[in-house]
C-alpha cells in the first residue's frame, strides 16, 4: 500500500513539520523555551490505526492536544482530508470539530460526576444543535450509541460513580462517537484499566473500527497493546518522531537504536520473545528545556559517534535486500514505508540481541 506524495484522498490526516514551543519560567532567569514538538511528520490513512509510542515527556499528549486544536502550533501544517483546520473560524470550525474526537486515559476524570451517563454522551449535541433536532431524535441516537458500546438503555440515568472503570471508558467512547467522527484520537485509552477489562475495551474498539470505518490514532506506552491493535506505528523521543513503519517492521526489525532498546527493555510474558541480551539504557531522559544537539538520543545511545552530536540525522530506510539506504537531503524517501532518523541505524535484529537465534 504505497502512499503518493502530497494530498491523497486515501489519507485522513497529514501533518508536516509541526512544531510547538512552550515558554516556561525558570527561576530568576526569566523564561526558557521548551520545544515540546520539533518538526512532526505524520500521516493517517482511512480506516487505519496509527500507533503513537514513546515514554513520558516525549510529547505524545501535546501532539494529541494540538491535533484536537486545544493548543495552537507555532509552525507546520495539518491537512485534514485536504482542509487546514487551523484556518477555520466560527461555523466552519464547529463543523470540522465533529470529524475529529478524542477518548481520554482516566475513566474517572473524563466524566463529570454531577451529570448522568445520558447527559454526558449527548453533551456534544448541546453545541451542535443542528445534528439531531428534538428530544426524540436525541434519545434515539443516545440509545444507538449505548448499544454500540455494549451498555444498556437503562444505564443512561445512572451517574458515573455507579459504573466500573471499563464501563466508564465505554461511556467516554460513546461520547466520542456521538458526532459520528472520521478520526478518533485515543490517548492511552486502556492504561488505567485492569488486564481483564482492558481486553474487553480493545475488542470494542476493534469492532467499532470494522463497523464504522473510523480511523484511530492510538497513543500508548504499553508495547504489547500497541503491537496487537495498530497497523502502523510512529515512535517519538523528546518531541521528534524518530521512526515510523508498519507494526511488523518497527517491532520485529527496528531501525533506530532507541526503538530497539524499547523493544528489548519491555518485559515479555512469552519466553520465546525475550531478547538474547537485554539493552538497558543508561542515564535519564534529558530535560526538554535544553535537548542535546544533533540527534537527541545520542546522550543515551550505545552507538553514538561524534557526528551524532554535530548534525541532525537525515531520514533513512532499509531496502528489500536489507541494505541501509541513506536519504540524501532533497532525495525524497517518502515512498519508503519504514523510515528512521539515525546516522548508524540497527543493521539487523540480531545486532540488537532482539531475536533468539
Amino acid at each position, binding site marked *: 500500500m504505497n502512499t503518493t506524495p502530497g494530498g491523497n484522498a486515501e489519507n485522513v490526516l497529514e501533518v508536516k513539520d509541526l512544531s510547538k514551543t512552550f515558554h*516556561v*519560567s*525558570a*527561576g*530568576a532567569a526569566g523564561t526558557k523555551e521548551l520545544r515540546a514538538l520539533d518538526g512532526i511528520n505524520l500521516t493517517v490513512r482511512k480506516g487505519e490505526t496509527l500507533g503513537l509510542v514513546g515514554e513520558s515527556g516525549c510529547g505524545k499528549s501535546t501532539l494529541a492536544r494540538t491535533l484536537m486544536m486545544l493548543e495552537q502550533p507555532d509552525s507546520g501544517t495539518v491537512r485534514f482530508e485536504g482542509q487546514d483546520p487551523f484556518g477555520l473560524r466560527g461555523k466552519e470550525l464547529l463543523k470540522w470539530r465533529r470529524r475529529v474526537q478524542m477518548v481520554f486515559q482516566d475513566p474517572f476524570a473524563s466524566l463529570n460526576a454531577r451529570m448522568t451517563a445520558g447527559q454526558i454522551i449527548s453533551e456534544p449535541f448541546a453545541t451542535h444543535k443542528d445534528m439531531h433536532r428534538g428530544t426524540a431524535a436525541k434519545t434515539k441516537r443516545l440509545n444507538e450509541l449505548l448499544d454500540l458500546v455494549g451498555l444498556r438503555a437503562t444505564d443512561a440515568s445512572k451517574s458515573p460513580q455507579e459504573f466500573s472503570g471499563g464501563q466508564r471508558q465505554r461511556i467516554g467512547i460513546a461520547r466520542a462517537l456521538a458526532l459520528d467522527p472520521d478520526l478518533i484520537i485515543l490517548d492511552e485509552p486502556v492504561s488505567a484499566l485492569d488486564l481483564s477489562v482492558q481486553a474487553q475495551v480493545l475488542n470494542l474498539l476493534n469492532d467499532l473500527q470494522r463497523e464504522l470505518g473510523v480511523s484511530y490514532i492510538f497513543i500508548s506506552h504499553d508495547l504489547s497493546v500497541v503491537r496487537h491493535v495498530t497497523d502502523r506505528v510512529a515512535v517519538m523521543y523528546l518531541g521528534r518522531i524518530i521512526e515510523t513503519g508498519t507494526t511488523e517492521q518497527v517491532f520485529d526489525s527496528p531501525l533506530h537504536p532507541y526503538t530497539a532498546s524499547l523493544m528489548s527493555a519491555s518485559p515479555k510474558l512469552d519466553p520465546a520473545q525475550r531478547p538474547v541480551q537485554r539493552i538497558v539504557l543508561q542515564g535519564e531522559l534529558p530535560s526538554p528545556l535544553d535537548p542535546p544537539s544533533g540527534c537527541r538520543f545520542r546522550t543515551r545511545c550505545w552507538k553514538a559517534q561524534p557526528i551524532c552530536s554535530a548534525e541532525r540525522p537525515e531520514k533513512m530506510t532499509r531496502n528489500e535486500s536489507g541494505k541501509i539506504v541513506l536519504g540524501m537531503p532533497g532525495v525524497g524517501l517518502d515512498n519508503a514505508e519504514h523510515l528512521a532518523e539515525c546516522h548508524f541505524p540497527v543493521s539487523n535484529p540480531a545486532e540488537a540481541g532482539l531475536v533468539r537465534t
Partner: protein
Amino acid sequence: MLTYLRKRIISSAVPLLVVVVGVFALARMTGNPAALYLPLNATEAMREDFAIRNGLDQPIWVQMAQYFGGVLRFDFGTSMRTGESAADMALRAFPATLQLAGTTMLIAIVLAVIVGSAAALNPNGILDRFSSFVSMTAASIPDFWLAIVGIWVFAITLGWVPTSGVLGAAAWVLPVATLVMRPFGTLVQVVRGAMVSSLSEPYIKLARSKGATQYRVVGAHALRNAAAPGLTVAGDLTVGLVNGAVVVETIFGWPGIGKLMIDSILQRDFAVLQACVLLTAIAIFVLNILIDIGYALLDPRVRPSAGARGRRKARNEHRGQNNTPATTGTPTTSAPVPTAAIDA
C-alpha cells in the same frame, strides 16, 4: 535569594502606594475641617488664614505633591489637633499596638499548633470537639461585646483586672484574651486540617516503615509539612488583627495606633491619619515579606530555584485550601473518618 526579594518588594509596593494615595484623596474629600478647629463665630478672614496655613486652599494634586515631597524628607506634616509632628505621634502609638498584636499572635500560634495537632491525632476526641467549639464561638462573637462582657465580669463584678489602661500585667489580660479568640479559632482549624491531610500522606507510611517513633513521625514529618499552610493563614490573620485592635484599644483605652487613627478620623486630623495609615501599611508590607521568606524556608519547593510560577502555585494552593474563614464543623460530624475504599 536577593533577586527574589527585589521582585517581592516591587510587586507588593504597588498595593502600599494605592492605599496611601487612596486615603489621602478620601480624607481631602471630607470638606474643610476649619469648622472643627475654629470657634463658631470665626470670621471669614480667620478661616482663610487657617486654610492657607494648612495648605488647604491649593488644588488637591498640589497638596498631594507637597505631602509626598514632605514624606520623602520624613516630614509627615503636623497634627492640626496638637501641633505635634504627625510622624512622632504615630511612632509613639505604634509600639503599643505592635506589642499587643505580637503577644496575641504568639499565643494564638503556639496554642493553635498544640491544640490543632492533638485534635488531628485523635479525631472526635475532647480536644477536637473543644477546638471546633472555640473556633465556632470565636467566629460568632463580636470582639467589642466580648470585651464588654470581660470588663463586666472580671473588672466590675470580680474586680481582678483594671477596666482599662496599660500599667501592670493584669491590664494585658482582657485585651489579649479578647483579641486572641478569632486568630486562634481560625488557626486551630487550619493546623488541624493540614495535620490530618499530611498524616494521611504516603511519606508518613515511609517514615513508619523505617521504624520511626510516633513522636518523630508527628513532630518531624507531619508538623513540618503542616507549618507552611499555617504560616500563610497566620499572615492574613495578622492583618485582621489590626481590625480587632482598633475596637479593643478604644474600649480599653489602649494608647495604640488603632485608637489614634479613629480619633484622628473623627477630628479630621489629616496629617496624623495619613501617617498612621502609612505606618500600618508599611508594617503589613514588611509582614508579608517575612511570611514569604518563612514560607520559602519551610517549603523548599517554593524556593527561587523552583521558579516564580512554582512559588505562586504552591502558595495559591495553600491559600485556596485554607482561606475559607473559620471552618467550623459541628462537633458530632466533624470526625474525619476516612471513607473506606469499598464504600459502595
